[in-house]
């Protein structure tokens, strides 16, 4: 009997140790990070503002009653199947916000989902998309955030179901699902396509809602952009690929109009979270919206789950 217990005990001890080691943020950085964390040029605050709008930061982090959408003391709770996430204060407040963060800490948070204290963030903060941003762009965004007012207030802690409540587990999830690479331009494509690719896949984080996810909450890669359940409950985020259930019948202009004014080709006006998104995309330049449309029109058709008929 004793002979059997010791190997089991040993395995359990080793297994636990392996879990704690492999789920440490340092393990992720060593195994998957691309270490492209150093900005290479001077800061461009205007570009930071564009990324702020493209990234929809205000949608989650601005105070719900703030019309200017620049008081970033934390927004409405995000109610998901995994539990309730409370978006934190990212204002320049030194106590409750990120006023004391260094640029390197911010870049790491955005690209690896790690807090300055070395804790994993949950991927409800879409660093799975933001990791594709170049360190220069993230540094510009940081410079822009610094220009926004400090706002007091700490968000309540997340209220998650087991096992999602074990934060360390996110480390394992990252090793499986978080690519550490910056989105690289495709030389075979036009400048506009590359610009759209970058905006849609990184800051815009469109795929986060418009894709189905597996049981662990990761996007199913070969179904990317084919539409997904509304993470906040009712309805579906539509298919964005060139499938007939998607945007096949939409022209580039139709997509630009939606991103600018919130109207579909039938002049239905989008509701709920997408109208929140349109507030962000409406602040982009025409050129950026056009680029996003060009990229979306290039997505290969993938059949999505049909939406409920109207």
């Amino acid at each position, binding site marked *: 009997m004793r002979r059997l217990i010791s190997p089991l005990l040993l395995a359990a001890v080793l297994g636990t140790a392996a879990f704690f080691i492999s789920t440490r943020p340092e393990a992720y950085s060593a195994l998957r990070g691309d270490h492209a964390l150093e900005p290479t040029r001077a800061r461009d605050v205007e570009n930071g503002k564009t990324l702020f709008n493209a990234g929809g930061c205000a949608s989650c982090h601005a105070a719900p009653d703030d019309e200017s959408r620049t008081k970033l003391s934390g927004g409405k709770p995000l109610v998901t199947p995994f539990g309730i996430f409370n978006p934190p204060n990212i204002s320049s407040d030194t106590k409750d916000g990120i006023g004391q963060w260094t640029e390197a800490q911010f870049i790491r948070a955005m690209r690896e989902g790690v807090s300055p204290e070395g804790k994993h963030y949950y991927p409800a903060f879409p660093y799975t998309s933001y990791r594709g941003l170049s360190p220069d762009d993230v540094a510009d965004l940081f410079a822009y955030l610094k220009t926004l007012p400090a706002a007091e207030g700490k968000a309540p802690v997340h209220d998650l179901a087991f096992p999602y409540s074990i934060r360390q587990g996110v480390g394992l999830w990252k090793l499986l699902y978080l690519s550490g690479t910056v989105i690289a331009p495709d030389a075979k494509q036009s400048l506009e396509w590359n610009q759209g690719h970058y905006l849609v896949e990184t800051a815009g984080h469109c795929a986060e809602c418009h894709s189905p996810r597996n049981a662990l909450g990761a996007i199913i890669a070969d179904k990317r952009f084919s539409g997904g359940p509304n993470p906040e409950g009712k309805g579906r985020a539509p298919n964005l690929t060139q499938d007939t259930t998607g945007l096949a019948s939409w022209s580039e202009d139709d997509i630009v109009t939606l991103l600018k004014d919130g*109207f579909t080709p039938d002049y*239905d*006006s989008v509701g709920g979270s997408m109208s929140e998104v349109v507030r962000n995309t409406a602040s982009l330049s025409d050129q950026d919206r056009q680029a996003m449309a060009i990229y979306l029109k290039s997505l290969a058709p993938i059949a999505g789950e049909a939406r409920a008929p109207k």
Partner: protein
Amino acid sequence: MIHRFVLAGSALLLATAALAASPIADRQAIMKSFGGATKPLAAMLKGEKPFSLDEVKKSLAVYAEGNAKFVTLFPAGSDKGEKTEASPKIWSDAAGFKAANEKFKTEIAAAEMAIKDEASFKATIPALLKNCGACHEAYRLKD
């Protein structure tokens, strides 16, 4: 012959009653009519269609007519069923919802007065159309 009229008449009555009994279908029909009315306005704004004052007036009349009925189509209990995308906020924040409808009403009336030519059309309509998204953001669930 008379019988047939009576029959057709009662069938029509029944159909009307069925329609009136479904506020969800009614309010969705109004929203659809708004979409149809907005299409030519947007085409004129983008310069894809020549400006026509008559058509603008027609669209504004569709808005005004629909707007007048719209708020009455959310009786208690009509928050569920028939694929409604109405947000529970319509009932929990009834005053805010009513105010949003009133704001649209006022702006439709102002647009009817203000629009006389293409320049005044282009100066007025974009702000009027902002009502769609603003109200949907607050009172329509994600679609």
